[in-house]
């Protein structure tokens, strides 16, 4: 901040301090300077305390999850299924593979669609249609994930379903994709806007058409930023639990089909593992919580890293 006001009590009221034109600073002519200084001190302290308070829950959660979960995470945790909660020798392989299946499908659905929508908004969108698209994309960010789950259940699973697949990784992918879509769209839009117009004009000047300009000039220029947005969307999607209850249902065994059969996922396995009595199963649930947190964190950190490189390039 360029203008810092120093209000040390010793300086205040230390004799006449007039400006060359004879004016005195406002804070010295006012009689309530002392009160204002105290209010300032109090307020600044409150802000600092609030900052500390906000960090406390994070530390507590990290400590609890790490201390309970570390014991469960080992080689077996990633290579074995969990046939029953009682057994000691078991792991979350089914969940990890299931989450990977679901996320790959969701990424393939959400990112191309979101990117194309962003291209439309930045390069072509004009007038009312574009602002409607933008507005409803924003509104879509706020739709509860459980509602998306209900919708996919009604579309693909319930007895009145239009395209019946039953509980499956595909249904879960669709739900997660719908949750990710607006995040991808909006962040990609921001990134495409950052590409300078001069670059587009340069491309046109070389004789490129608009579509060619977008595909070969704008997209590569924005690529790191686009990756950042997509990774943040993936980070959001991977931790979702509620829509999976209604679409993937869960499985403790490895499931390799995509369009049929209930599929496992790490968040689902954590939820059912934490809700039963066997010590080994609860411990694995903490292990699952720890690995899920680490996955999300890695995605976020990677996204920031790529994003900061993008800023330098831009």
């Amino acid at each position, binding site marked *: 901040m360029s203008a*810092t006001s120093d209000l040390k009590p010793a300086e205040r009221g230390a004799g006449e301090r007039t400006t060359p034109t004879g004016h005195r600073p406002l804070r010295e002519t006012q009689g309530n300077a002392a009160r204002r200084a105290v209010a300032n001190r109090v307020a600044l302290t409150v802000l600092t305390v609030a*900052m500390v308070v906000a960090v406390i829950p994070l530390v*507590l959660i990290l400590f609890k999850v790490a201390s309970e979960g570390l014991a469960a995470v080992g080689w077996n945790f990633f290579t074995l299924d969990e046939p029953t909660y009682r057994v000691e020798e078991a792991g979350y392989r089914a969940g990890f593979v299931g989450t990977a299946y679901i996320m790959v499908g969701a990424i393939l659905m959400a990112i191309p669609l979101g990117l194309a929508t962003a291209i439309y908004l930045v390069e072509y969108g004009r007038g009312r249609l574009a602002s409607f698209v933008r507005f409803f994309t924003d509104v879509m960010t*706020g*739709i509860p994930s459980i509602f*998306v789950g209900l*919708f996919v259940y009604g579309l693909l699973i319930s007895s009145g379903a239009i395209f019946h697949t039953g509980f499956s990784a595909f249904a879960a992918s669709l739900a997660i994709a719908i949750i990710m879509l607006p995040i991808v769209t909006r962040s990609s839009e921001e990134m495409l806007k950052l590409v300078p*117009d001069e670059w587009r004009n340069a491309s046109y000047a070389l004789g490129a058409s608009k579509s060619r300009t977008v595909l070969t000039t704008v997209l590569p220029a924005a690529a790191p930023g686009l990756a950042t947005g997509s990774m943040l969307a993936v980070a959001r999607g991977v931790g979702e639990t509620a829509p999976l209850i209604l679409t993937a249902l869960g499985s403790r065994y490895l499931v390799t089909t995509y369009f049929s059969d209930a599929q496992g996922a790490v968040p689902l396995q954590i939820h059912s593992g934490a809700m039963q009595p066997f010590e080994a199963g609860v411990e694995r649930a903490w292990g699952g919580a720890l690995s899920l947190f680490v996955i999300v*964190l890695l995605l976020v950190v990677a996204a920031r890293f790529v994003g900061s490189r993008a800023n330098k390039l831009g």
Partner: protein
Amino acid sequence: MSVITDQQPQDPPPGLRSRTRRRVADPAFRWFVTLTGTSVFIILAAMVVRTTTEAWPIFQHQGFFGFLTGDRWVSGGSRSDDPADFTGVYGAWPFIYGTMVTALIAIVLALPLALCIAFYINQLAPRRLRKPLSYTVEMLAAVPSIVFGMWGLFWLVPNVLRPFFTWLESWAGGFFLFEGPVFGPGYLAAGIVLAIMILPIITAIVREVIAVNPLDQQNAAYALGATRFEVMRKVILPSSFSGIVGASMLGLGRAVGETIAVMMLIGSTKSWDSSLLQRGDSMAALIASLFKEATPEGVRGLMAIGVALFLFTMVINVAARLLVWRIGRVAGDAAV
């Protein structure tokens, strides 16, 4: 750094559009992205139509306002989709109430804290610490909600909240908001954990909003002799007001839709109570907890709750977006 504008990039000069292949490829690409752009309407419309169709017999059976205001929920066992055969009673009021109360608690707790943090990071923190600090707060957003639920159920409620509630009840139990008995899980427990969960998103947006406040205005105030606190309160806060309201509405929307953590902490009962220490249920949590064993008729009931929840979040979100939009686009509000 290039200049960022909200204006559309220019089109290529018309003279350059000549070759045949381009004449086909270019409009095709244009149509393709326009179509995908409109897919958001298709998805939204499909969601509304599909869930409403599934829920329709319940609205017929119960009446739409009867559904919203009824305070009994008994899932029926019928497998038919004719409302005349339904045996259940579907009243969503206790869950609408529970959703509102927990979300309000969350916002009341999270907003002041988020404001303080945003101001601290933006105005007080040493420049070098700003990024690390904001990343730290945003790390909270990286904790999946199931982890919040487990942490709340196994650690926070028994070790911190229950003793706190007991003290609160002994001290202010006469006041209707804090009437006993103390359970542990309940509206307040769920609301407190929700507050932690929505803190990062509100902080992030508020930070963006106050960051775009013109430096000139702040410097002008400092030049007039204002203290730091006065600059924050009288210069930054008023001009950021609508953005902050928008941020809290977005936080509210997040809180309203949160499912798993609330389900584990609200002490679910199908009733409602004025005391914050009592148990209830929220719309999202009810769907998740009754879904697994639901009969076909019960699933329709849950669809109806889903439609109500959708309308609820829709109102909050549209209001929030309109407010945030008024102060201009806020970058990064969609992130995390």
